[in-house]
């Protein structure tokens, strides 16, 4: 490993109105290293990389040095010209443009091109996708891609820059294990070529798998930078959160009566012949490769997609749900996978975002919202999910990604649904919060709620779920009771599709 200093940060601080996101950070990135940046939600990781990318201006007083020479970026283009390429946590892609352009356009700008050479752009994009072992139609509009593919496109975009520093802000949050492996292979190759990589992830196994050094941030402060060998998972967590956290393995418990029954649900081009039963007090895992159609099934139950045929029964009564409103009224809640576009009311406050599902219950008999009730309610949920900073009137845009996710969770937990469907609920959530969320889901199940948990993170599925369904290409490929499930079996079913549905209880 090269020990040569490449990029140094001296006393970098960043203050947002009311929040000190970064406080005098001093760290360095060496040439040819993979450097992981970890910390709790809101620790300041994204802010730090935005500064490195020129997307945010640091407070006066701090410095960034590249090869010992001070630089300052007033615009992201200047950072790009200094050969720093980034994938952002919110992806920062163009939903209305094709995959080709999303991958190549910033490279074109960096080169100072004025004209578009479509053929050349196509081949550049093709190369980048090939590096990631990806086969996506280049002319597809980005908004027609699944979240996972969008994330891969964002990564491919960073790859086309002939960068010295590649920054990846939670690149794996919606990727499947396969895709993560492909990404890691690429990272190793790039590292061998002398590129430095700054990598943010909440998945600590990934951090240990790939990084040379690890920097821990806490509350905007630099806790320390360590060689990977100096740390183990437990130590790292305690550095991050200042206390110890155990990843709970939950026991399978007896479950109640059938709550939600899905029979032969079919929607052309989405999914086929979906049948399963969810019981009271059960957490049913729904896993599989990204693009297997899990989201579509969930949205069909939630009334967002109208199936062509098949029945859904809630407590034995057939439901004809044609809108999300009806689903919600029937007691079904769905937490979507795409936080930015489907979950958040950007431009509104945390309080607004938290209270939207419970508004009617916060009003008095004249239909006027009672401020005192609202305050109590919001305060309670901020505390319960420890959303930080705990400012109800702060715009949701200004919260860190993880805290935004907590807000979305809170609004549905508060609704006290009968059936709760969570689609990749712990995306971008730190270990501490993640185990809190697991705990919460378990508690809810214990209260008799039926939960469907869509997740691509197998350890999580194995830890929390009572029963696991595996989907493959729009169909249920296998079903495992908790005791019988292993990562290998699930992966096998997800990729190859074991027809044997075991234990149909």
């Amino acid at each position: 490993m090269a020990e040569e200093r490449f990029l140094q940060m001296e006393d970098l601080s960043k203050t947002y109105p009311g929040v000190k996101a970064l406080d005098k950070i001093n760290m360095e990135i060496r040439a040819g290293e993979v450097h992981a940046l970890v910390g709790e939600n809101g620790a300041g990781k994204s802010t730090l990389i935005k500064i490195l990318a020129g997307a945010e201006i640091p407070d006066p007083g701090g410095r960034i040095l590249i090869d010992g020479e001070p630089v300052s970026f007033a615009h992201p283009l200047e950072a790009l010209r200094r050969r720093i390429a980034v994938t952002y946590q919110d992806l920062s892609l163009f939903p209305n443009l094709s995959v080709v352009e999303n991958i190549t356009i910033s490279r074109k700008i960096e080169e100072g091109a004025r004209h578009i050479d479509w053929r050349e752009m196509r081949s550049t994009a093709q190369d980048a996708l090939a590096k990631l072992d990806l086969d996506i139609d280049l002319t597809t509009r980005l908004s027609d891609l699944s979240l996972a593919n969008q994330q891969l496109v964002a990564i491919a975009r960073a790859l086309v820059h002939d960068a010295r520093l590649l920054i990846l802000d939670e690149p794996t949050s919606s990727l499947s294990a396969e895709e993560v492996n492909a990404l890691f292979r690429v990272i190793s190759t790039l590292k061998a070529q002398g590129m430095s990589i700054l990598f943010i992830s909440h998945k600590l196994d990934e951090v240990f798998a790939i990084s040379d050094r690890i920097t821990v941030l806490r509350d905007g402060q630099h806790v320390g930078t360590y060689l990977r060998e100096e740390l183990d998972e437990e130590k790292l967590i305690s550095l991050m959160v200042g206390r110890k956290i155990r990843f709970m393995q939950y026991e399978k418990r007896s479950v109640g009566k059938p709550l939600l029954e899905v029979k032969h649900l079919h929607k052309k081009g989405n999914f086929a012949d979906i049948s399963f039963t969810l019981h009271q007090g059960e957490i049913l895992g729904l896993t599989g490769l990204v693009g297997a159609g899990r989201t579509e099934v969930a949205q069909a139950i939630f009334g967002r997609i109208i199936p062509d045929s098949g029945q859904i029964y809630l407590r034995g009564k057939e439901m004809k749900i044609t809108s999300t409103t009806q689903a919600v009224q029937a007691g079904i809640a769905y937490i979507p996978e795409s936080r930015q576009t489907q979950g958040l009311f950007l431009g509104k406050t945390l309080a607004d975002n938290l209270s939207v599902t419970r508004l009617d219950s916060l009003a008095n008999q004249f239909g006027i919202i009672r401020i005192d009730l609202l305050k109590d309610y919001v305060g309670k949920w901020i505390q319960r999910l420890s959303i930080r900073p705990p400012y109800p009137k702060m715009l949701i845009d200004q919260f860190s990604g993880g805290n935004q996710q907590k807000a979305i969770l809170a609004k549905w937990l508060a609704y006290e649904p009968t059936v709760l469907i969570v689609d990749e609920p712990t995306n971008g959530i730190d270990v501490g919060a993640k185990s809190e969320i697991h705990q919460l889901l378990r508690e809810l199940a214990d209260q008799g709620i039926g939960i469907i948990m869509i997740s691509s993170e197998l350890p999580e599925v194995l830890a929390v779920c009572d029963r696991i369904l595996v989907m493959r290409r729009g169909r249920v490929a296998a079903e495992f009771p908790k005791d019988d499930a292993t990562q290998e079996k699930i992966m096998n079913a997800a990729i190859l599709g074991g027809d044997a549905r075991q234990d149909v209880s």
Partner: protein
Amino acid sequence: MENNKKEYMLCGVLAIIVIIMSILSPDRFLSLYNLQTMAFQLPEFGIIALGMMIVILTGGINLSITSGSALAGIMAAFILSGRVMVGASIGMSIALAIGVILVTSVLLGLLNGFVVAYIGVTPILVTLGSKTLYEGISMWLTKGGAISNFPEAYYWFGNESIIGIPVPMIIFIIIALITYVLLEKTPWGTRVYMVGSNPTAAVFSGINIKRVLMQVYVYSALMAGLAGVIMLSRYNSAKVDLGSSYLLQSVAAVVLGGTNIAGGSGKVFGTVIAVAILQVISSGLNILGVNRFIIDMITGAILIAVLTLNIISNRRESRRKSDETVLVAENRG
């Protein structure tokens, strides 16, 4: 953070304009007569602006608002002028006329709402189409002429005062209060803002956005109708272009009042103050005998200036706030 800074600043602007007008023309501008006149003039415009605002809050726009006003007014005018329902008593025909205005408005609003919410067409296109349609129907009904000659008693709505406060002003205040409470104090109002902020997230939050949008367009049309009630009385007649000059002005008032044109945020109070600002500029400069074109220019300049001020002060504010936090942090540290 959300706050009322924009509204304070608008109040400041209003105060400054009032002061300037008072200095330039103390005897006339501040005369009771002029104050009353302004109080008679403002309501119809104010109500239309509120109707425009609620649609803009959902990220839409209602270009048919004044045409709807005119059409509803014309329907009522047929009754008031005795062209249809001959022989009804005066009280009856007034009650009926107002009923007809409201019912017509609701129907017109339902049409807009249906096409926007249930079919999913962009509001600007829908309302451009319905504007043309409503004008066409008005034209067809009236052949371009004015329907006039209403019973004296109907003048009350637009021309009388109660303890010195003009009736239209009272109507406006009531409507503004109702709108304020509905939008800013009830679950329904919050849903309106949420739909404007992110319709997809609203759907995923179980909000029936179709119904909310439908209601919003009906509300907007109702406002247009109520403005029609006042205009009908003040102008003693109904015609296809009744109030047409309020269309773009109402958009201007809404954005001047701080409502985000993309939807999701905006306050009733801001719109009301903006309406007052436009009223004072218009009346004040008229009294000074300023050429109407110059008044237009000044109004346009003020619109841009206020928004510029807003943005500059926002930038300064956030800079000051960050400085403060630094200080606090350093003191702590």
